[in-house]
């Protein structure tokens, strides 16, 4: 039987305002986690019953450690409480959950890893796994979109590929969106993996369709159970799904990663 795991906080720090880097000793989850999956974190507070689904940024099976980089979404939202937890504190979690990125689809082709805002962390693990898989970094372009010069994790991508940055205010890299950065640097891909806010994913999906590039995107939706039972976190699909028997798929169980051309935005 699968069950919740009792993790222990190894370290936690605020890397840029509002973005926290949490390392957790959780050997069971760390042993299985692959890029694009998430864990449910439970706050152990009877007033806050629902788990917080947080994407995995890195997993070290030897150390039994998981890394999560998350945003505090506001006071009293649960992530604020999480950000105040000190090393040594236990924290229950369940996972890894969800399907993860099908990185094998990259083959030998040129890959875009496109991340926007708090969608960036899972791509760091994807970038590392892609290098392990292919033994080369020169066919990987990492395109990261931030609001402003408060970038995070960007330098950590450098061993895994070429890093291009876009900021909304132009304070770093190309001014504009991740697609503006792709055009400005004249980058080309055979396969795309992306994670970020819905408008970014919609734009990336459109771009991939126009350029006929196979594209996988990681979707986000409000969740409750995290294991595919409650049907809270569905996304609209073009075709009828085999499990739901309607044009809906479960982000937590069938996703969070989907073929971009399956999804209706």
């Amino acid at each position, binding site marked *: *039987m699968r069950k919740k795991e009792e993790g222990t906080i190894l370290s936690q720090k605020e890397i840029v305002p509002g973005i926290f880097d949490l390392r957790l000793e959780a050997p069971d989850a760390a042993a299985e986690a692959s890029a694009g999956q998430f864990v449910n974190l*439970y706050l152990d507070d009877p007033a806050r*019953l629902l788990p917080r689904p947080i994407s995995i940024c890195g997993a070290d099976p030897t150390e039994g450690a998981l890394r999560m980089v998350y945003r505090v979404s506001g006071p009293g939202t649960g992530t604020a409480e999480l950000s105040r937890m000190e090393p040594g504190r236990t924290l229950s979690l369940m996972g890894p959950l969800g399907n993860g990125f099908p990185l094998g689809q990259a083959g030998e082709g040129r890959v875009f890893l496109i991340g926007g805002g708090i969608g960036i962390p899972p791509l760091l693990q994807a970038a590392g796994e892609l290098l392990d898989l292919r033994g080369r970094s020169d066919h990987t372009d990492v395109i990261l979109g931030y609001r402003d010069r408060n970038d995070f994790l960007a330098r950590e991508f450098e061993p895994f590929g070429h890093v291009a940055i876009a900021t909304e205010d132009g304070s770093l890299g190309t001014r504009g969106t991740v697609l503006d950065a792709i055009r400005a640097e004249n980058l080309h891909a055979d396969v795309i993996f992306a994670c970020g806010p819905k408008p970014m994913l919609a734009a990336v999906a459109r771009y991939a369709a126009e350029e006929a590039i196979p594209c996988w995107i990681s979707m986000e*939706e*409000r969740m409750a159970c995290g*294991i595919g*039972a409650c*049907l809270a976190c569905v*996304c609209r699909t073009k075709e009828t799904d085999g499990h739901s028997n309607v044009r809906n798929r479960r982000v937590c169980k069938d996703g969070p990663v989907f073929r971009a051309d399956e999804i209706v935005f």
Partner: protein
Amino acid sequence: MNNPVMTASGTFGSGQEFSEYVDLGRLGAVVTKGVANHPWEGNPTPRVAEVYGGMLNAVGLQNPGIDLFCRRDIPFLSQFDTRIMVNVCGHTEEEYCEVVERLAEEPVDLLEINISCPNVREGGIAFGTDPAAVETITRAVKRYARQPVIMKLSPNVTSIADMARAAEAGGADGISLINTITGMKIDVNKRKFVLANKTGGMSGPAIKPVAVRMVYQAAHAVRIPVVGMGGIMTGEDAAEFMLAGATAVSVGTANFTDPAATVRILSELEDYMRRTGTEDVNELIGAVTE
């Protein structure tokens, strides 16, 4: 039933997802997510929001329809030594009856008729907030049912006793309550509704006192068994509902806090019985004293 702990409809899917986390054979019954005569797409997202001590949901009874349900979900559940209670939903009396008739030949033990969903425009709660309508739909469903019929009642009424009596008058074999309480959450920074449906059904421990009161009132109004639910998180919560008059209990929102909540609650209920010298769990039913 092996024991009085069941799952609350909509929180446990059709058992399959939870079977990785819970031995379904330890449950008194698995109560499935509501199923209609044809597939329903449900409401737009966001469908859930957390609130203090509970949550709101407006899933809108997304379901795969009775055909796929009978082909896939019933055979799956039949592998386990547990009772199967199928929750039935519909927009019209005919739709409820069609599903009930379809289930007559299936290896299903009990039917729970959902006349109390606050998240669908037609059907659902429209049948569950007027005593005459409750009696009519109960009578109609009973004509087609082979299995015992449990009517699931809404708390969004002035007199739960009237609704309970109406279900009994219509021939119900039992009643279950409470379904969720209609609520709303507004994001004050964005000045927008948090749920796409604007309103949603509130569940979780924050509604438990309301549920216990209603179970007590309903149990005193009828002779048929009552299934109690609403914010059960512990074995003592389960005992509280039974003391108020419930014959069995359903665990709902707690499944989201811990997928193994049902079996934990069952073992806590056993601890409670040992601690209080209760030999038979049925001794608890309605045993509250003034």
